[in-house]
Every structure is written in C-alpha cells, then in structure tokens.
C-alpha cells in the first residue's frame, strides 16, 4: 500500500539505498532499504541492461511502425498546424498519412522519399 498517513506520521521511514555489493564471482548483489525494511537482492542481467526511462522529447516525431517514406509534404523551416499532413509512410499494405501532432515550425526533416525506416526512427524535429 502507499504510505499516505494522517497529519502525524507514526514512524519515520528512511528511504536510503545502501549500495553495498555482496556477491561472489559473477553474481552481483545489492542491499536496499525500502520503507525501513532491508533487502538483499541479486541483480539480473535484464535489470542491468534495461533502458532508463527518459522524458519523451516533444520536439521530435518518431515512426510508430516500420515502412517506406512515399511522399513528404513539408519543407524545413515551414510553419505547421496540428493535423497538417507531414508525410506518407507506406507500411502494412497501407499509405499511412502521418500528421503533425501540434503547431510549430519544422526544424529538420530526418528522412527522404524512398527511405526505408525502422520503428522509432526520427521523422522530423520541431524548432
């Protein structure tokens, strides 16, 4: 459960992480203190290799699906409005129309007609 309490918290809880390593050989361990309880835990490869969460950059528009750029409707430096057509991305047998998500000015176009792009590729940057 979350730890919202009455006006007077009953116990003071220390939330410090103790970064002591405690493994042997390839196995790395870590001691954690969460809500006053001490845990000893093994770090998995998945944990160590995980991608850190980053605040999404509102200035970039990325492809949600892999495909081929068929047509680009705008030029760099152009002012655009939300819902304006940006480009046509052919993917899954469909000429998908990609629109601008909000008003702004196009700073840079990162793709060209005919490019095959992968999922997540940056399409354009706003100024």
């Amino acid at each position, binding site marked *: *459960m*979350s*730890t*919202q*309490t*009455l006006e007077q*918290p*009953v*116990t003071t809880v220390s*939330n*410090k*992480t103790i970064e002591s390593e405690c493994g042997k050989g390839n196995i790395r361990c870590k001691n*954690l*203190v*969460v*809500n006053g309880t001490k845990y000893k835990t093994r770090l998995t490869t998945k944990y160590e290799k995980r991608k*850190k*969460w980053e*605040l999404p950059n509102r200035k970039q528009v990325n492809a*949600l*699906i*892999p495909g081929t750029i068929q047509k680009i409707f705008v030029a760099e430096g152009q002012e655009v409005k939300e819902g304006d057509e940006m480009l046509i991305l*052919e*993917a*899954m*047998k*469909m*000429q*998908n*129309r990609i629109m601008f998500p909000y008003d702004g000015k196009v700073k840079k176009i990162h793709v060209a007609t005919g490019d095959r792009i992968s*999922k997540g590729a940056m399409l354009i940057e706003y100024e």
Partner: protein
Amino acid sequence: MPLKRKIQELKKKREEVQMGGGEKAIEKQMAMGKLTARERILSILDEDSFNEYDLFVEHDARDFNMDKKKLHGDGVIIGTGTIDYCPVCIFAQDFTVAGGSLGSMHARKITKIMDHALKMKMPLIGINDSGGARIQEGVNSLAGYGEIFFRNTISSGVIPQISVILGPCAGGAVYSPALTDFVFVVDNISKMFITGPEVIKTVIGEEISMEELGGARVQSEMTGNAHFFAENEKDCFEQIKSLLSFIPPNNDKKSKVYAPKDPKPEFKVENIVPGDPTQPYDIRNVIRGLVDNSDFFEVQELWASNMVIGFGRMNGETVGFVCNQPLVLAGVLDVDSSDKAARFIRYCDSFNIPIVTLVDLPGYLPGVDQEHAGVIRHGAKVLYAYSEATVPKVTVIVRKAYGGGYIAMGSRHLRADFVFAWPSAEIAVMGPEGAANIIFRKEITTAEDPEKMRKQKVKEYKEKFANPYVAAAKGYIDSVIEPEETRKVLLHCIDVSKQKQISMPRKKHGIPPF
C-alpha cells in the same frame, strides 16, 4: 427529552458529520481543483435521489492515539440513488478526512454498499480519492482492501462496476479499479500507480513525476488502464451518464431501448471507404453511418487506436462494435489492440450486448518487439473471446481480411452468426504480393525478366483471390452486399437473433490466455 429536541439533535449531528474533514480541509481540496466527495455524488446522481447510509460510522482503532481522533464517516460516503431514474449504488472516498485513507470501518462501509449492489443487481460506481492504507490500522486496513477486491471479482460480469479516479489511487488500492469494468480519469487530477515516484527513485534510481508516471493521460494513452479521459470532473460525470445509458443494470437484463433514429445523411458509408485498399480512412465514420442518429460512444479512444471499440444503437437497442482502424498503424492487430478487443467482446457477452465486427486489416504486426511482447498469447485472446461469446455476432468484411487476421476478427469459423462482405473485400490466406512470391517462386526465379513475371503473377493472384467470391463460394460468408445495404442487413440480423440460444459443454470456467 421531547422528540422535537431529539430531531434537532440529529440534524445538528448530521450537519457536523457532513462537513467531512472541516472547512480548512475542504478549502485545500478546492485549491487542488477538486470537488468534495459529497459534491461529486450529488452531481452524478439525479436531483434529490441520494440516500446515504453509515453516516455515523466511526473507526475503532486504538493504537497510536487514534482513539482520541474522530474521523467523520471514516473518510468515505456510501449510498444509493438514481441516474436517469435507474438505481445505482455509489461510494466516494473523502480526501478531506485523513486523506481518504482506508481503515477497517472505511472498508466495511465500501463492502456494505458493494454487497447491496450485488444483491439488488444494480450498477456500482466507486469514486476513488485516497492516499492509500491507513498505516495506523495496520493489517486491518490490508484486510479491508482484500475484502473489496474479492467483491469486485465476484460481482464481475453480474453487475456493471465503474471506477472514477478523482485523486490519488496508489499502491494496492489501484487493484480495485483494475478489477472493475470501466475506469474514468480526469486530467491533472487522477493519479494511479503501484509504487510511487519516491520508491522508484530509491530502488531503481529513476526520477519521474507523479503525472508522468501515472497521470490521467498516461493511463489513457499508454497503459490502457483507463477507459475514459475527461478534461474536468463535470465532463467525466457526463461520460458516466452516457455509458450507463448504453449498458444494462445487470447480466439478466437488456439495455434500455430508445426511439430508433436513422443515421445522419453525411455519413454515407459508400463514400467513406476508398476503393484503393492502400488508402486509409476513419472506420468510426463507417460506424456512424450504421448506428442510430450516428451516435457512437467510443471506449478507450486514446489507447491502441488501431482497434476501435464502443457502443452504438441499432433500432434503439445497444450494440457493441469491434472494428479495425485503417487510419492508425494500418489497422494491424498487435499486443495492445488484441487485449482491448478481447476484453470488450467478453464485456458485451456478459451483458447481453450483440457484437458487430467491421473487418479491414492487413494482419498481425510483424516485429521482434511484438513477438517478444507475447503477441501469440495476446492475439489468442481475441480468438478465445469471439469463440466463447454466445451473444448474436454479426461480421462485415469491408476491405482486407488476410490470414490470421481474417480468422480472428469474428469469422464464421469462430461461430459468427452472420458474415457479410462488401464487393471491395479481399479475403485470402495472405496479401497478393507475399502469396505470389511463394506460390510462383519457381516461375519467377527462372523467368527471363523476374520482376515482370512477379508483377504478372501478383496481378493474376489478385484477380483470382483478392475478392469476396472465393469465400462466398464456400459459404464462409453468407452474402456479398452493397455498402448501402449494410444497416438494413445488420438491423435484420440482430432482430432475427433475439432468441439465440447456445449450449456449451459443462465446465467450471475456461482458461483464457490471460
């Protein structure tokens, strides 16, 4: 003491308790842009219809000096009332009383109204605005959560359960909304997460705000935990009323019937769908061209938008729509859209709502991330849900229906009662390009001009198989219809399926690929 004085005393007591956490706390609540729990209940229900219970309940905690503290109503308001003259049970956590924290009596009030709802078979609306467990009450407060979750589960599929998140809903507490049918959130007010930003920072070392972690937008667009997003509380309450107009009060009843109305003339379905199968369009306009008054009430609009689900009326009666959306990600089936469709199909099946499926999809989305995210398991949910559903099922293939996507989207083979196709339909084992490359591999590779041969074979395949008539010849589809006939045909099919009865093999329950 004369009775009059006693009545006076009662009135005074009532007034005092109804103030919740007192003026200061109410001011704080207002400063956060939130209504009080009582205001919320009164604005959702019909005027003068609210009947409150357990107003004078008090907590029984003794430790940590709690015996000296009085918490009005123990931080939650419960009662019954009506919405559009239909009875509902409702509870609202009161953040002004000890942060809406959940102790044992608080939980007992909630479970009391939940028991009422199940017994009287009426919808349950829960308004969540709570900091979480009341730590001073220890394991008793955990027991309270457990009792709520159990009732959520037992009531599931019997009565509609609606959760409205109007404040924080954190830790284990979020599992109650997660077990209910529909979750409503409001921008800047709703916050849902299992572990908050502080714990994440301590354990993982990542810094994130509450809003970015589990705000209304995140829950509606990224996670799919929420079904309806509103800008403010007033809009949210209107959405709740609209939803309730479409769904029945329990699983024995049918939804309310309204006066039938024709769709608006601007939604002429024939003009909405482009003939070229590579051109996208908004499937929602096709739905609007089929339902009464073009009134389509979409569920989970912002999440997995490559699948459109929602309610409309046909001949005044509620129908559930499950449709591919060519406008988003070409309308592919993927992990999230499968999840979304499957759950909605099961909802409609539980509550006697006929299902209309509109098909236009290229298939499942290829990709490592999809495979590794378990698209096999998630995609299987759609097959399971359609096969299991015994309500009337009518499917219309608008354009593309290829491969596994054709089977999954309410096909005859999963026991759709009626399957129709427009003349623009392409029903085949796979798209012409792929199919020709496999079937005519030899001819293509040994030809003098392989590219020319490939194009020719693709064309041949397209002409022969990318149409509805091969499937029609086998009876897999019942009829090829003109787009403008669709509404008439759907109305007829729903009408003739009213007495539909199916007996399934005896079992306790199946094991869906959760």
